[in-house]
Each structure stands twice: as structure tokens, then as C-alpha cells.
């Protein structure tokens, strides 16, 4: 959203491009490169620009999660996730060079469940080929200021396990993507590290912190995210250059107003030269803040890509014309990429990175704009979320697990079958509504209290509905088990 995207004041840097460290601690380097073969190769000696096509899909904010999914209430916000995924899947099939990332599993599985088998097969191929990559992969992109680690672990696990079951281990997300939460907690980084993530990218940090990092080229670092866990909790962490927006002038979405690339010289308004110049300038500016010969550009925004073709048509051209300049000496190489391709390129750069041991709170987007109100906003919703977490843990250990136990000793086979089918011996299968509701509530516009009132009401209803459904099962379990 326009209001929420703080454009960076580009600070000019006097620091050398390549910082050499005096003292270096070398950690054993992974012996074999795990670079995803689907990543487009970088060009040595050039500034490599990684275009990351993405959409930021809030699991509820101005509209409810389901309104966002279907795209209803366009008057409030023109946003429909089902169209985004339909459209991206079409666009990716047209050119194997194109890439896209998807982040919020709550939306992805709403869509997946409605697809035909042929479409599912296509998606599986796109995932296998690396064209479509899951990044983050939790049920939502959870808030970090008002969430409890118990709920963070649950919501991440919910999304990641579903992805695993659907696409196999090869599709396991390895990059965390917290592009919108309003400040970043150390525990979140520790949890990501323990979940096997190789790196984390985010968008929001204190404006002065950002300026300082930009000037010192310390936008990317290794977060030592635990006092006790050692390097098991180290996480490579990158601050994105432009929150999560494209460079100014390069938003090619149908909802944006930037000019497309008009490349037929016979037609009016031909603008390729201007567009390429302008892009190279943006790239040069961005490279000032970063230490390696790779930079990332986030080509997306909130709920964009409902018409993915508009993006890819223009980005195809942008890549073609920018790289064409290399023939006349340009040292800039641009390509479709993903956060994991970018991270892997940073890793291959073999640089030495600064460290970070505290956290990124509080977040101030200006001298008088401290995002510290949301720590308390909607106190009853926050209380309800925490209370429901406790109930959910009780239901899982107590009545899902324990009632199976209770049922076994005294009941004959027939009754055991009844209990098992009632409760499901599968993973929380019959608690899904409650587990998913809790997953949704961890979103950075849910438990944070920063959604519209009607959305907050919808969230409360989800918690109540999920709890009621789970309680029904629990009561049955208690009865069947002799309670």
C-alpha cells in the first residue's frame, strides 16, 4: 500500500564497495554447492540484478481472508488471490525463464483444493522445475511483535508440512520472507534457523537503522539469533532495498500506473532507451547499499499479479533490452530470480558478513512514527488468540491424543475404530478448522490488531468456530472413552 511503503532516501556512500574484514571467523563451508540448477547463471564481473516476481497477499487486512481469496468487495480493495494464482500459472507456462514465488500457504491451499488434476499436474511441474517456488511457506506471514513462539511454530509447521505432503521434500522452502511485519524479533530468526531456513529477507526496520546500514553496506548480515543455541540459531538476514516494492517507475501491474515498455520504433511513444536508462540508474543507486555484486529487486506489491501477463510481458522486454546494453559495454546483468537463487548467489560470493545480536524493535518509519501502538491494539483479540492457543494445545495433547489412549484399554476393536474414525488418527485432521484459524490469526494484520473492524470480527468468528468444532469432537471423545 502506498501509505505503508516507505521509500528510501538513498544515502550516498563513501565506503569502498568491497569491505575487507580484519578478523574473520570462518565457519566450515558446505562442501558441495547446493545451488538450484534452475537459477539463471550470474555473470562474473557484472552487477547481477535478481528480479523477484512476487505478490504480497495479506491473510486478511482491509478485507477478510476469504474476501481476498475470491476477490469480493472490490470497492474496498481490488484484490483476488484466486485470479493471481490462475494468472501466474498461465504466464509461467509461456516461458520457462519466468519465475514466481508464493508465500502464504493459507491462500495457496484454498486455491489448490479447487484445481483440477491437470492443473495440479502443471503446478507440480512448475514447482519441480523451479519456476514456481515456495518461499516462507507458513500458513501466513506471521506478525513478530505480538505473537507467541508456540503459535509461530504451529503456524509455520502447518504450512510447511502441507507443502511437503503436496510437493515433496524438494519443494521445501529454504528462505524466510517477512517482507511486511512491523519490526522483527530475534526469536523469529532463531525459529527460522531451527526450521532449516538458509536465510531471511524482510522489508521494515527503523528508518535511521536503515540509513546507517545503507551507508555502511550492512543491509545484509548474519543474525546470531540466540544467546544459547550458538550457530544453530544463526540466520543470514537481508534487508530488502525498497520494503517489497519495485524500483520507482517499474510496477507493471494493471493496478499500477507506470508506463509499459513500448518497443516498436514505428509506433508512437517508443520508450525503450528511457526505460533502460532509468532502470540502470535505479540499479546503480540500489547497489550503493549492498556489499556483493548481486542485488535483489522485489517486483510486486500487495495483491498484484491478478493479470500476470502485464508483468511478464514487460519484464521479458526489460531483461532483453537491459542485457542487450552489455553489447555496448554495460556491466549490468538482469534476470528472473527467486530469493533462494539470490541467497545462493550471495553465498557463492564468498564474502564475510557483519553480525547482529539484538532485534529490530521498535520499528519507526519516521521520527514520530513509532509502530509500537500495535503491540497493544485490540487487546481482547490478542487475549483471545493467546487463550485459544492454550485450548488448542490442550485439545491436541488432551483429547486428541489422550482420548485415543483412553479408548484403547477398555474398548473392543469395534469401539476403537469408532473413536479413531471420529478423532482421526491422522495429524489433527479433524481439528483442522481450529488449527487453521490459529494459523490465520498469527498474520501480521490479525493478532497485531491492525485490520479493519469487520475483519477483526471475522477473525474472532474463526477462532470461535474452530474451537466449537474441535470441542464437539472432544466431547464425543470423552463420552466414548468412558468420561
Amino acid at each position: 500500500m502506498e501509505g505503508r511503503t516507505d521509500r528510501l532516501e538513498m544515502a550516498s556512500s563513501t565506503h569502498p564497495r568491497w569491505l575487507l574484514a580484519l578478523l574473520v571467523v570462518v565457519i566450515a563451508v558446505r562442501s558441495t554447492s547446493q545451488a538450484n540448477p534452475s537459477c539463471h547463471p550470474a555473470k562474473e564481473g557484472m552487477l547481477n540484478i535478481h528480479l523477484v516476481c512476487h505478490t504480497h497477499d495479506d491473510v486478511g487486512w482491509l478485507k477478510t481472508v476469504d474476501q481476498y481469496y475470491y476477490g469480493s468487495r472490490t470497492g474496498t480493495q481490488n484484490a483476488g488471490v484466486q485470479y493471481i494464482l490462475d494468472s501466474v500459472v498461465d504466464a509461467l507456462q509461456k516461458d520457462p525463464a519466468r519465475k514466481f514465488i508464493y508465500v502464504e500457504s493459507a491462500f495457496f491451499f484454498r486455491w489448490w483444493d479447487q484445481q483440477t488434476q491437470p492443473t495440479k499436474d502443471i503446478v507440480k511441474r512448475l514447482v519441480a522445475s523451479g519456476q514456481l517456488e515456495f518461499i516462507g511457506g507458513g500458513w501466513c506471514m506471521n506478525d513478530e511483535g505480538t505473537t507467541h513462539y508456540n503459535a509461530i511454530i504451529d503456524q509455520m509447521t502447518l504450512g510447511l508440512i502441507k507443502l511437503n505432503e503436496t510437493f515433496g521434500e524438494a519443494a521445501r522452502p529454504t528462505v524466510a520472507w517477512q517482507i511486511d511485519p512491523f519490526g522483527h524479533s530475534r526469536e523469529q530468526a532463531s525459529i527460522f534457523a531451527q526450521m532449516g531456513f538458509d536465510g531471511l529477507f524482510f522489508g521494515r526496520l527503523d528508518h535511521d537503522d536503515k540509513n546507517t546500514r545503507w551507508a555502511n553496506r550492512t543491509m545484509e548480515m548474519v543474525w546470531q539469533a540466540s544467546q544459547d543455541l550458538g550457530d544453530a540459531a544463526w540466520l543470514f538476514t537481508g534487508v530488502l532495498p525498497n520494503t517489497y516494492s519495485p524500483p520507482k517507475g517499474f510496477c507493471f501491474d494493471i493496478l499500477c500506473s507506470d508506463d509499459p515498455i513500448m518497443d516498436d520504433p514505428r509506433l508512437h511513444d517508443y520508450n525503450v532507451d528511457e526505460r533502460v536508462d532509468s532502470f540502470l540508474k535505479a540499479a546503480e543507486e540500489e547497489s550503493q547499499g549492498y556489499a556483493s555484486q548481486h542485488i535483489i529487486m522485489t517486483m510486486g506489491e500487495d495483491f498484484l499479479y491478478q493479470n500476470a501477463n502485464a508483468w511478464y510481458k514487460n519484464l521479458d522486454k526489460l531483461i532483453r533490452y537491459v542485457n542487450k546494453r552489455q553489447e555496448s559495454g554495460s556491466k549490468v546483468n538482469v534476470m528472473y530470480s527467486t530469493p533462494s537463487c539470490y541467497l545462493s548467489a550471495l553465498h557463492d560470493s564468498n564474502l564475510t558478513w557483519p553480525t547482529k545480536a539484538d532485534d529490530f524493535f521498535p520499528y519507526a518509519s519516521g521520527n514520530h512514527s513509532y509502530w509500537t501502538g500495535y503491540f497493544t491494539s485490540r487487546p481482547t483479540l490478542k487475549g483471545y488468540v493467546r487463550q485459544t492457543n492454550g485450548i488448542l494445545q490442550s485439545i491436541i495433547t488432551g483429547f486428541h491424543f489422550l482420548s485415543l489412549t483412553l479408548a484403547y484399554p477398555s474398548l473392543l476393536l469395534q469401539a476403537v475404530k469408532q473413536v479413531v474414525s471420529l478423532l482421526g488418527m491422522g495429524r489433527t485432521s479433524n481439528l483442522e478448522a481450529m488449527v487453521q484459524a490459529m494459523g490465520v490469526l498469527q498474520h501480521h494484520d490479525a493478532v497485531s490488531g491492525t485490520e479493519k473492524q469487520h475483519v477483526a470480527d471475522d477473525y474472532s468468528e474463526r477462532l470461535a468456530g474452530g474451537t466449537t468444532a474441535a470441542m464437539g469432537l472432544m466431547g464425543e471423545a470423552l463420552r466414548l472413552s468412558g468420561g
Partner: protein
Amino acid sequence: MGVMGEAHRWVMGGYQVVMGEAISKLQPPEAVVMSKGKDEATPVLCPLLNISSCPITESAPSFITTVYNPVARPVTHYVRLPVSEDAAFKRALLLLTIEGWEIAFQWVPSYAGIPGNEVADSAARMVLTDVNTTPFPLPLSAAKCLISRVCRSTWNNMLGDTLRITSMGQYRSDSSPQPWIRKKSRVLDVTLTRLRLGHTTLTLTCIASVCPLTPTAFVLQSQLLALNVTTFDLPTLLAAAGVPPSRQHAVIRLTCAFLRKTGNAVKTQLVPIPKPVLATPGRKSSATFELVFPAADIPPLGLLRFYIQRTHNRRFLRQQMSKVQSRQLGGETPIILATENLTLVVDPHTGLLKMVGAVHPGAINMIPVSQNFFVYAGMSGNNSKEDFRASGAYIFRPNGSEAAKVSDKVEVVTIEGPLVYEVQQQWGPWVSQVLRAYMGRTNLEMEWLVGPIPVEDGVGREVVSRVDWADLTTGNTFYTDSNGREMLKRVKDYRPTWNLKNQEPVAGNYYPVNSRLILDNGTLFKAAILTDRSQGGSSLQPGQMELMVHRRLLHDDAFGVGEALNETQFGEGLVARGKHFLLHSTFADRNCDFGCLHRSLGEELLLPPLYLFEETTASVHAWKESAVNKWSGLGRSLPNNVHLLTLEPWGDNRLLLRLEHMYATGESQPHSNPATVSLKGLLADWEIVDVEEMILSANLKKKDENRLNWKVKESGKPVSQSKPHSRSDNSVHQEDPSTKEDPLSITLSAMEIRTFILTVKKSSTRF
């Protein structure tokens, strides 16, 4: 103490007193499912307990409360149930706790081979193992008196039924060595049970015809006579029951152990609900009192069930009712409420908290502390530039003036009773609070009720609770949790990695408080405040704790949401109720230091017991016969420093298990030390046949983890490189045979979480 030791040993010897009757009667199972599935109510939650509202507890003549403990250690918890004034005054409530009943009335003379009984045994064993350590609060005679009072109202009803059953039942078995083999008849067993209880209408002397014959005593006598038992003294009865002389002594001693447990279990207290709670908008409840009782030692991952019934017993009401005093402010004598563990002093002029204290051997240590509610006026503005930024859903921006006290003086009502002391404080129409000190608990509970926040004057308001520790000089440093786990150091007006020029002296020092804020000046003098939800908080002055509890604002802050944060409900501003818990290092003792106090309380707040309610028309007797009233999913508790983070069914015969060491290094002695958990026998009914360690998200085997490694610059301080915690390098473990772990023995170091997928099968011993 010798008797208790005997009792303990005796219990451990294997003869258990449990809910065996109930379980054995579950057969045949189909019949149970059929007959129980139809007419019984399904247990339900009462989601509005936080405003003392629950239809079942308010109106049902008798109901069952199931209390489930999701923590992997036994937990003692004070249950609070809303009850209506009508019931409270006219009929008085009688609480029969499961422990009272179980121990007073139930026994299984033999249990071998009866499915379920052995399970129940282990649950009971867990309860009884602390017999040695729990100080007995009452003289034996007083306990007997209490028990008999509880029993009398229902005993006679039950007795008739009981005596009609003369057979041994189908579950007779006598293969195990026991002090008391049930042999002759149910009549004798009943007689002995009643003797052990000290039942007043059927004591030894009564049976021996000293007291006037009651009808039931007469029936019993005649039945005993039919069995040729003519001398009604205890040795004779025991002998007739088949208890060999060598074991009679143990049976008699057991009586003492039983009385102790039972005497503990029946304590209850009726506490009036504070007026502001009764007036909460939207509250539709007839309840004006809360019935408080302890659910003692709820088994780990287990449940206790309580049968609660109203009675006509006025004497009971008198005993249960709290002493309620409306305090006039202005006197010189401070208001002092003291439990064994905690002393609470309220200023007689203001009605505000003045001191807390703890009793130590030889001294009471009193700590000055004050607490009050303050209000920030939210900045209004059109957000057209940074200076005009409004306080809103995202942004906290006070309008620049100091926070104002809600009031200098509060109205105070004090509550005293056997289980809890309360100070009910009222600041005015929209802020109130209850301070609570429960017997045996070492924290001060502060339940706040805030709203509707007035905004009629066009000013948005943000309400904070401030606690000031006069003697705790902490400078500008305080600590807040990171998502409820590790603690982070915060320094006012300072950031570790860049030069802060803070232009928002309050908002710029606010940090997320998801579970606790701690003051610690490096001495033994520390304080913590714990929350029941996420809040913003800070320490703006040395020794001060500030938490924002509620906010109501009239302007959008222009970060996209497009609405002012002006929550309303029932046509008024939203009312919120929540809890803070105050801890001080002086509350610590030898067993639990300050770190232990806040970590163990934090775990209990995260996973509070779950209450379920169901109305019942069954008699206590029938209920006991049919219900599983005490259970545990674990074969034993986890060590005190290990948190069971996850135990979840995970597909075919698999369970997901996460164990967490919940202490940081240096936080508590000895809890910060590594912990070892043996998984063998941990699950009461499941045998673990395979263990696979996973990464935290359970989507990759730990041994397949291969994260990218990064070279880092060493900063000023040493880089943490404590490899022992890192399990990413598997080769190290495999090459060194001395570190080869028993797969069922799990060691956790400080703050470590380990995740496992267990393949399990039912323990064969139970079948």
C-alpha cells in the same frame, strides 16, 4: 511423619485406591458406547469465564467439571466458577472433589488383569507420591470432622445400593500380594471403608452398638450378622475381610493417609464478583459469586473431574463464604492481607498497593511497591507530514503531555477466606482491578478491567498500568521477552547498533511484551511482571514497569487500514479484562529461585488448565461408577526445566514430540543446567518403537539438514560459536562413539528445542 512414610511405602507397594469400579464396569464396550452416547450431555467450554459467566455453573443443580492439565508436570490450580446468588444463599454449594471421593469411598481390593485399573493406579500413584512432602494443614480430628460433614449428605443414599450387592463382582482377582484381599463380601468391604473414613454414623463405636441404631447401621449390622460377624471391632472386621494380621496395621495406618488427602480436597470459598465485572456491558449472567476450590495436583497431560452439587446445608455456606469488607480510606492502619507465602499491604489513604512481602524463616521481607493506572492522550493529526502523525492502530504517539493518573484514590473491598485473599479496587466507572494472593502461591495476581474508555471529549486515550519498585535501582535497563522465549536487554533511549536520536520519549522506548518484562540490576533484587497476552511495555524510570493494557483512538494513522482504532461493543467502548502477575526475587526460596519463579509461572500461563462443564442428573454414586475421573497421558512427569511443547498425533501410529529446555543459561540454578529425558515409559500407554529426530518444523530429518554456512566478521565481543548446541554437523556425533546417544534418552541444553517423530504401539501390558 512416620505414619506418612508408612503410607507412602504402602502405596508404592502396589495396592491402589482408585476409580477402579468405574473402569471395570465399562465392559462390554459396545453397550457402553450405545448407552452413554444418547442421553448424556457433551462437555462444553465456558468461553466467558473471564467475566465470570457460565450458564451451567450458574444454574445447574449438579454438574461435572473436568479440569485438564496440558503441562507435563502435576499442577495445582485454583478453579473459579461463577455461581448465582440465589444458589449461593439459599442452598449453598457442596463440592465433592474427585480426591475426596476417590479416597474416601473407592477401593479395588484386587486389580490384576483388569484393564484400566493399572492405568488408574499409576495416576493415583502420582497423586499420592507427594504425601510425604505436603504438610498436613489440619489436625487429624479436624480432618475427620470435615470429611464426615462432606460425606453425610450423600453417604446414606449410596449405602442402600451398596449393600444390596452381595456378590464380589466379576472382577475379583487375588493374585497380587496385598495387605487387604477382598474376600468375604461387599458388606465387609463397605464396613471397612466406612471405618477408614471415620464416618460418624458408622464408626467403630457405632457398629458396636454404642450409639443409637440408625436404619442403615441396623441394616449393616444385620448383614454382618448374617455373615457370622458378631464382634464389631476393627481387628475382627479386618480378619473377617481376609486381611492377615501382619497387614492389619498397614490398613489402619492407611486410614491416616486417606484422611489427609481428603481433608485437603474439600476446601472451598465463595468470593463475591466485583461490581464493575457485574456491570460489564453485554454480560448476561446471574452469577454474583465465584466458587473457588483447588484442583490439587492435576496429573501431567491429565485430568481431574469434579462433581459439584448444590445442597441445602447452611453450615456449609457459612464456612465457604468469604469475609467481605468495604474499607473506608483515610485511616492510619494499613490494610494487610497475609497468606503463608505472600503478604500484601494496601495504603490506607489511597487504597493502592503499597508493599508486598514474603515470609522467610525468622522474618517477613517487605518490599515497597506501588501500582496505578495512567492514561496517555493520543496525538490527533491529519498525517500530512511526520509532525502531524496521529496515534492509531499501528502508531503509538502520546500528545506530548505526561501520562495522567486515572485517580489518586481507589475504593477498596477486601476479601478474606481459606483459599484466596483479594483486594478489589475501583478507580471510577471504567478502571478497576482485583489483587489476589492465593494460598500456597508465590505471585501477586492483578486482574484488570478497563473500559469503556471515555472519548466523549474528542481525545483518544491509551491506558497503562505502572508498577514502581522504590528500592530497585535499575537505571535505564530492563528486559523483555522475545516472542515469549529468550529475554532481550533494553536500554532507554539507546539502540545497540546505531546512534538513536529519539524524538518520541515514550513511544520510542516501547517494546513488545509477549509474556514478561523483567527488572534486574544484577543483584539478587529482581522483579518481573507477566502478562496473559501480548502488550506494549517499557521502563521509563528506574525501577518502573509500564504495560499498555488498552487503547481507544479517534484518528487513523494513515498506514493503510483507513479506520480509527475505536473499538465498540454493545453500543459502548470495548471493555477489556486481563491479568498481570507480579513477582519479586524475595518470593523465591531454596527450591525455586527467581528464574524458576518466572519460567514456571510463564509455562502455567501459556498452558492453563482447560475447564469443561456438563450438567448431570446422575447421583454422585452413579457418576463415580461410570466415569473416568482421574487420568494421565504420561507415565511420569518431565524434569522441571523441560517444557512439553508438542505432543500431537502425526499419522499412522506416529506422534510428533517437541521437548524444550525452558531456561536460558544463568537464569536459574540448577534449572539452567542440561536436562535429560528418557522417552522410555514417558507415555503411559504407548511404547515407543522408533524415534526420528526432525528439524523444528518436522518437514526434514535432522540428519538431512544441511544449511548454508556463512563467514562472519567478528565484532567487538566474542562470537558465539558454542558448537555443542549445534547438531548440524552430524559427522562429529557419529565419529565419536562416546557421544553416541541412546535414542530414547534425550538431552537438552539451555533453551534448546528438539523435535521427534515417534512411532508407537500400544503398551502390551495394558491388555
